[in-house]
């Protein structure tokens, strides 16, 4: 494989930014954000350079590596800290650094009134570095370092305003739920090492064919657990909604465009594992299908604009996971949807941030309305993102989502019909709730107080939104033109040939558009053509109530894990107190009681001591007397 010593700069530049901003402290307050943005942009430039070099090489020479240092060398077990940049990584590198840089620019203005803007940018740079390490690692162990790094950055950024206890709790919740996923990843690494003796991607790939299916299934399931935790998939989805506590640029970058898609990356990267483990693959599909419906249903009930978008993110990643679970046919489309989603969802989050910026940080959509006139640029960019996500041609989502639905229908057997229908229904619901967001925010009647003065955001904020909107419009078309992305990624996957076609692309597209039209129509009828309450109505059906409570995700977690956990810890504390402490205290008590018994001989009176001496002398004399008799 070709070596390239430039890869390290991709990571080193933002890492340097993070370290210098954190170490310099307040001294860097004045220019820290500029440095961070510049470093992120230069990392993007390095990425572009790498892409151009890669394009100049023949297909089989495209992946490049760089060995940084020998990390672990224990007997036959060797792990090098090496970077690998191939066709899959470069997509992510450009997405991360590109969208990341745009969000850096956006944040300069968005966070300009925050005391800790420098710290914010340090964390952002830390995130970029960790995420790049995640996608550039050439082994599961290297990936794991980045995986934990983004978890840390996510935790720090969700709890960035940790002076509010609710936000601090949200960051802890995200961290703890991510831990479960991380456990899965570490188990996968351990199983791979124990049974295959290697943890590098190429090593595992070589062993994948002749290892037992049970081993591969175990690794696959553990990788799925990791992906589920990081990507907020069912059943570890509960943290994403609360993660919206972080500043909006964070939600856009980490909890929409990049970090939460790391699960998809992991599954696609581990394609050789899942190809060898059909059971695990089936589980991936099921998780994806459940989550895409779950997120969509939650999205219909949320009044908080960021939480509605978060639910939508969850649902869209469900689509990606579904695609990644469909095998070689779906990998490319999962990645394509990931990239297009990165554009339009980041754009919409930035739009939401812009709206909040103009509305004094109000997040309740029922207090919005008619903002189209006050924020035309935000409206247009957000609208492009909206058209992209619901899949209106020729916007980006149309291409990527259509492909996924089509692949689902064509995956063969009964499950194909089931998955396809789920994906179609999901598209309809997506259209419904996104239209709802759009209408409630921009086009319905005004529902905000008179002391609100909605205004358009400054150029530093709308420029990134505009660029992302352009991406939302064009990326789908560009990536799918002549199956560009599919061919690009082709060498990485082992193709199994074409499946039979259940439905032709035309039929699928028509069906999808029909469903989207249906969803849009219902939303328009319900919200545009009738009045919307400024306060969420309480006399609603049980289904709405359940959906508002995130389909009871927290209640279920609390009932299944938290309460039994509390009972268990309480019981353990009791055991600890009575048995362990009891034993320890018992020993102490024994010493104390024997001491206090002995203490009674110690009256403190000199005379009683003198008496004891006298008695002792008498006994001594008696002994002499007895001996000499």
């Amino acid at each position, binding site marked *: 494989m070709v070596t390239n010593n430039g890869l390290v700069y991709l990571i080193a530049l933002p890492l340097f930014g993070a370290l210098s901003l954190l170490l310099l402290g307040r001294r860097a307050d004045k220019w820290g954000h500029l440095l961070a943005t510049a470093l992120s942009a230069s990392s993007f430039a390095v990425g572009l350079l790498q892409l151009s070099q890669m394009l100049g090489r023949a297909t089989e020479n495209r992946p490049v590596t760089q060995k940084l240092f020998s990390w672990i060398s224990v007997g036959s077990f060797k792990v090098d800290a090496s970077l690998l940049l191939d066709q899959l990584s470069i997509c992510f590198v450009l997405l991360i650094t590109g969208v990341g840089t745009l969000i850096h620019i956006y944040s300069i203005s968005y966070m300009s009134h925050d005391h800790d803007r420098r710290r914010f940018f340090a964390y952002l740079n830390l995130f970029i570095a960790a995420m790049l390490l995640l996608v550039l690692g050439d082994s599961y162990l290297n990936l794991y370092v980045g995986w934990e790094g983004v978890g840390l950055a996510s935790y720090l950024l969700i709890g960035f305003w940790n002076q509010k206890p609710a936000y601090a709790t949200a960051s802890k919740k995200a961290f703890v739920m991510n831990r479960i996923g991380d456990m899965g990843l570490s188990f996968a690494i351990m199983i791979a090492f124990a049974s295959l003796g290697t943890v590098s991607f190429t090593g595992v790939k070589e062993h994948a064919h002749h290892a037992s299916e049970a081993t591969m299934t175990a690794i696959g399931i553990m990788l799925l657990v990791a992906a589920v935790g990081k990507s907020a998939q069912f059943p570890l989805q509960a943290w994403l909604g609360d993660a919206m506590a972080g500043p909006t640029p964070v939600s856009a970058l980490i909890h929409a465009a990049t970090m939460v898609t790391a699960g998809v990356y992991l599954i696609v990267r581990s394609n050789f594992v899942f190809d060898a483990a059909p059971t695990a693959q089936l589980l991936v599909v099921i998780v994806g299908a459940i989550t895409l419906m779950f997120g969509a249903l939650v999205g219909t009930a949320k009044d908080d604009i960021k939480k509605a978008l978060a639910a939508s993110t969850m649902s869209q990643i469900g689509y990606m996971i579904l695609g990644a679970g469909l095998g070689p046919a779906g990998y490319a489309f999962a990645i394509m949807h990931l990239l297009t989603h990165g554009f339009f969802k980041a754009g919409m989050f930035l739009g939401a941030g812009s709206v909040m910026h103009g509305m004094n940080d109000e997040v309740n959509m029922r207090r919005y309305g008619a903002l189209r006139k006050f924020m035309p640029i935000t409206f247009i960019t957000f609208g492009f993102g909206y058209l992209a996500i619901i899949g209106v041609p020729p916007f980006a989502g149309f291409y990527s989502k259509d492909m996924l639905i089509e692949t689902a229908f064509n995956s063969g057997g009964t499950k194909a019909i089931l998955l396809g229908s789920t994906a179609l229904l999901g598209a309809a619901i997506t259209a419904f709730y996104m239209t709802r967001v759009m209408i409630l925010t921009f086009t319905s009647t005004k529902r905000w107080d008179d002391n609100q003065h909605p205004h358009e955001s400054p150029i530093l904020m709308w420029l990134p939104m505009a660029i992302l909107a352009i991406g939302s419009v064009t990326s789908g078309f560009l990536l799918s033109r002549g199956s560009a992305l599919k061919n690009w990624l082709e060498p990485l996957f082992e193709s199994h040939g074409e499946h039979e076609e259940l439905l032709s692309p035309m039929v699928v597209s028509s069906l999808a558009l029909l469903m989207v039209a249906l969803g849009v129509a219902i939303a328009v009828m319900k919200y545009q053509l009738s009045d919307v309450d400024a306060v969420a109505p309480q006399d609603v059906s049980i289904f709405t109530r359940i959906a508002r409570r995130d389909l009871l995700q927290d209640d279920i977690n609390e009932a299944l894990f938290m309460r039994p956990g509390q009972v268990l810890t309480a019981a353990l504390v009791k055991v600890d107190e009575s048995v362990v402490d009891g034993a320890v205290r018992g020993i102490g008590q024994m010493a104390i009681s024997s001491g206090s018994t002995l203490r009674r001989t110690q*009256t403190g*009176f000199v*005379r*009683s001591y003198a*008496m004891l001496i*006298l*008695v002792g*002398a*008498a006994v001594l*004399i*008696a002994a*002499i*007397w007895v001996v*000499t008799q």
Partner: protein
Amino acid sequence: MQSLLTIQGPETALFWFLAPLAVLAAIGMLLVKKAVHSALLLAWVMITLAIFYIAQDALFLGIVQVVVYTGAVMMLFLFILMLVGVDSSDSLTETITGLRPIAITAAVGFGGLMVSLLGHATLGREPIGLDIANQSGNVQGLAELLFSKYVWPFEVVSALLITAALGAMVLAHHQRTNPRPTQREQAVNRFRSGSLAGAAGLPGPGVFARHNAVDVPALLPDGTPAPSSISATLKARGDVIDSSQFQLDNVDTTVVEEK
């Protein structure tokens, strides 16, 4: 073979006369209430012992016993007794339960066994007596030993004496933590204290009475005796005379206007 020791009749008589008295005095030491009486009884025991020393050809020790013990040490005891209160008479009731019976049982056992042991202990030879050792005089014999064989212990003991004297001075030394109040300050304090009753100072003994000896309490303006005018030592000894016996039978209290 050296001449064996024989104890002559006068010494026997002396022993049987004095030994019971010494034992009685020692037992009396335990039984009397007042420490002063104990001290006197101990002095008697010590003098008895001095006589026994002399009787046993230990002339020097007998004299030292009288001079050092009965003289100096007992004087010191009496001096300290006076210092800490001659009134410090013990109540002889025991406060530590079980101490007295155990102590007496142990003591009786100890003494009985000791006597019994001495009774059948043998040296394997007859007592020798000090006639030979004291040939050139008891004091000279002791001096010879002290300054030859026992010169090192003698020096150590002298060092001990000096150390003890120094230690006693250190112990008895009282460091003032604040300057001694002057008369002026005392007067100010009297006036600033809660009541003005003692502001003018304590009344002198015998004031307003016909008798002004130190053992008669002064009378307060209302005619009652003032307990604070009598030394605590006198009070403790019970040597206070009731001032009422010196009261005038009839005092002319009628106020006559001056002409």
